[in-house]
């Protein structure tokens, strides 16, 4: 099945073509939905088959390359459409196709009755196609193709309801913002690729990483490459400073937020940094940058999420925060921990978003949590699964989030220092708090909506079954990565699986040394206690005494305002960067350079020719004698020529 890995990419493409070309004609929603979902399901099966086959291979021979066809063969650059099947790409493929499949099924129910039903599945399949290219690529250029492709699909899907307003602008405006901000990151990625090519002479992963070890490259080159690639990652994975697009991306339908902006696309940056682990390991200062940006983003986004009132906004900032954790892990040299968190985050964040979608649907598109309350009894399945996800993300054992988050915190402590652990802990505390604030305000407590107007109800099976499956995964998915102190001789299975991919990088970093098991257990207990206390405090405030919240808000009015308005980040960007650029372009580039200079040049040339011909045409007087005069002048010159050449 490994050799057929290209089918994973081909099926979504076929689904895209089928739904895209025939979609408007097919009136049957079920057919479109089935085609759209089954392609992803088939891809998932292929990946599972490849996974099983790879398991059978010995651990150091688990890298297979499957080439489809030659893409570019020019002057030294030789790129093919080939796919690298190894441990890391298999993990990512399983996540993308597995969670993607569930979300596709969910969407059949969620988008029921939408007039552009077929378009939704078309774009979703195209997205999976691009994402699979990204994670399976064996060279930077094909990965970049997928990178751009997912950016495009993100734009298309955010602006899916193109005729709706969204906050201060429109949904397509939000899509455009996502695209433009991503573009800035892509610029960094491109420069990184150029540097890689000029340093190593190739873009194929295996060759680049082999040469990264064998070539004698000065460290600052590695730092430059790493930083530029990381800029691309900040764009795609919404870290500081390019995070502003993700909250606006909530303008799109909820399954889009679940698939693209929680589980898969935003993790592309994490995957890319993990894939280039050897480059980052050769540039320790760049890794520190990654860690600092990651932990700071996590903290920053968590503070904003504390006070947001739109259910999807809370989840969006939560995503930014959790992505920060992943980059913290990568920056600390704990590459497999970062990927582990990608996996568990995919489970519970997708679940949270889908659950939120379920709530939004039944509350007739109401998204403000101040108008929810007490939905527990109307939507039992949604309530149950949402609770599971909230517990998972808060890091309570034995759910999956605990294992991944704890591994990150522990490895940050051992590899880069206590401060990172501390900030990570505070962020975890805030995560638990705002998550349960969301939970309590939505599902428990008094009903804050008009019961006579609104009749909340449970979602159909098409939507609840994926929720249940994701809840199961969120609950037990963490057992793959149990740390050594618990699992004994089995070791951390996930870590062991991914170890050969990161072996060279970890050797270079030379982390390790022995730390006491006791310290690990103590820190683990501290984080669990923090999370539990945050949950209990949230329960106290939002269930029992809501006035504490409003009193705190009015007491710290300035801080509250700052957080509610997300530190005025968008406004700052607007005044400092966007508006000067727009005004400058308008007055200098458009009005002056384009209108006056370029148009003036072209029009000037036309006028010049007109004037010249206006003068020259006067030769045609119509009188035969003037023509004869010209002839005589010609004779004069000809005779002169003959005389001169004769003598």
């Amino acid at each position: 099945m490994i050799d057929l890995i290209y089918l994973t990419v081909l099926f979504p493409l076929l689904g895209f073509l089928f739904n895209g070309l025939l979609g408007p004609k097919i009136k049957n929603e079920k057919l479109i939905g089935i085609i759209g979902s089954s392609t992803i399901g088939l891809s998932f099966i292929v990946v599972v088959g490849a996974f099983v086959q790879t398991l059978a291979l010995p651990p150091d021979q688990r890298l297979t390359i499957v080439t489809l066809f030659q893409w570019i063969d020019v002057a030294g650059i030789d790129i093919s459409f080939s796919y690298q099947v190894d441990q890391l790409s298999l993990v990512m493929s399983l996540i993308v196709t597995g969670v993607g499949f569930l979300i596709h099924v969910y969407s059949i129910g969620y988008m029921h009755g939408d007039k552009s039903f077929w378009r939704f599945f078309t774009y979703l399949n195209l997205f999976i196609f691009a994402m699979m290219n990204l994670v399976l690529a064996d060279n930077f250029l094909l990965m970049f193709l997928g990178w751009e492709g997912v950016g495009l699909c993100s734009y298309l899907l955010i602006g899916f309801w193109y005729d709706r307003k969204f906050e201060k602008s429109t949904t397509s405006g939000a899509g455009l913002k996502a695209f433009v901000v991503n573009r800035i990151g892509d610029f960094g990625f491109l420069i990184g690729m150029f540097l890689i090519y000029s340093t190593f002479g190739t873009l194929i992963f295996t060759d680049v990483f082999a040469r990264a070890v064998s070539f004698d490259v000065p460290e600052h080159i590695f730092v430059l490459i790493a930083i530029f690639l990381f800029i691309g990652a900040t764009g795609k994975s919404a870290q500081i400073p390019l995070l502003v697009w993700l909250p606006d991306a909530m303008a799109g339908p909820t399954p889009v937020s679940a698939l693209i902006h929680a589980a898969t696309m935003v993790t592309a940056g994490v995957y890319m940094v993990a894939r280039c682990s050897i480059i980052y390991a050769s540039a320790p200062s760049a890794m520190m940058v990654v860690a600092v940006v990651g932990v700071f983003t996590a903290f920053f986004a968590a503070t904003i999420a504390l006070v947001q009132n739109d259910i999807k906004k809370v989840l969006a900032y939560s995503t930014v925060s959790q992505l920060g954790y992943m980059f913290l892990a990568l920056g600390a040299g704990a590459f497999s921990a970062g990927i582990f968190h990608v996996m568990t985050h995919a489970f519970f964040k997708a679940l949270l978003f889908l659950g939120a979608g379920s709530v939004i649907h039944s509350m007739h598109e109401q998204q403000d949590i101040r108008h929810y309350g007490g939905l527990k009894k109307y939507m039992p399945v949604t309530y149950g699964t949402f609770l599971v996800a909230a517990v998972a993300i808060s890091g309570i054992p034995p759910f999956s989030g605990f294992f991944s988050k704890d591994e990150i915190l522990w490895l940050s402590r051992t590899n880069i220092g206590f401060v990172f652990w501390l900030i990570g802990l505070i962020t975890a505390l805030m995560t638990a708090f705002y998550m349960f604030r969301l939970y309590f305000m939505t599902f428990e407590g008094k009903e804050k909506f008009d019961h006579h107007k609104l009749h909340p109800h449970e979602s159909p099976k098409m939507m609840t079954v994926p929720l249940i499956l994701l809840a199961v995964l969120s609950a037990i998915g963490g057992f793959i990565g149990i740390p050594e102190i618990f699992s004994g001789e089995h070791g951390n299975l996930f870590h062991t699986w991914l170890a050969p991919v990161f072996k060279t990088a970890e050797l270079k970093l030379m982390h390790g040394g022995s730390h006491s098991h006791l310290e690990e257990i103590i820190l683990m207990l501290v984080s669990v206690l923090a999370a539990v206390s945050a949950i209990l405090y949230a329960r106290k405030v939002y269930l029992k005494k809501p006035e504490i919240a409003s009193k705190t808000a009015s007491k710290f009015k300035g801080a509250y305002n700052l957080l509610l308005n997300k530190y005025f980040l968008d406004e700052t960007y607007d005044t400092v960067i966007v508006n000067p650029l727009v005004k400058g372009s308008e007055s200098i580039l458009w009005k002056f350079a384009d209108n006056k200079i370029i148009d003036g040049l072209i029009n000037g040339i036309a006028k010049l020719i007109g004037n010249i011909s206006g003068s020259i045409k006067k030769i045609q007087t119509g009188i035969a004698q003037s023509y004869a005069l010209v002839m005589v002048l010609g004779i004069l010159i000809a005779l002169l020529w003959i005389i001169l050449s004769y003598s």
Partner: protein
Amino acid sequence: MTLELVLFIIFATICAVSAVLMITRPNPVISALFLVLNFASLAGLYLILNAQFIAVAQVIVYAGAIMVFFLFVIMLLNPEKEKRFFQQKTKLRIFIIAVVALVLIQIIYVIFLSSPSEVINPEVSRSVQTGTIENIGREMFTNYILPFEAAGYLLLAATIGAMVLAKKKFE
């Protein structure tokens, strides 16, 4: 000072002077008459050059037929008299005269440059027999019969053309 030279000077002077006068007179009839005088002196020059037949043909055809034709047309159309030569478009005319004078100088230079008198030996070649009617007739009707016939066709075409162009419209 042979007779030939004297005759040449007389005829050449009349030729040149009448040519200049022809182009400067405002009255077209006077111009035509000066042209006739020019043709007559040319005929004299031809005689000096042993071209008897051509001299006579010149008088008969050119002076006798073509110029009469010109005079008929002038009288028919009765054009108005122009102003005097240097009183209209003076600048342009002086420019023209300058240009043509340059051309003339160049031609004369070329003439003397190729120095024909060193190439040609006239003592041997010049003979009265060259231009007699018998000689011309013999050459024309044996070696040059084709151009002769072609000239005939040309004249036929010209005749028909002139008639068609100048006749009044068909009713």
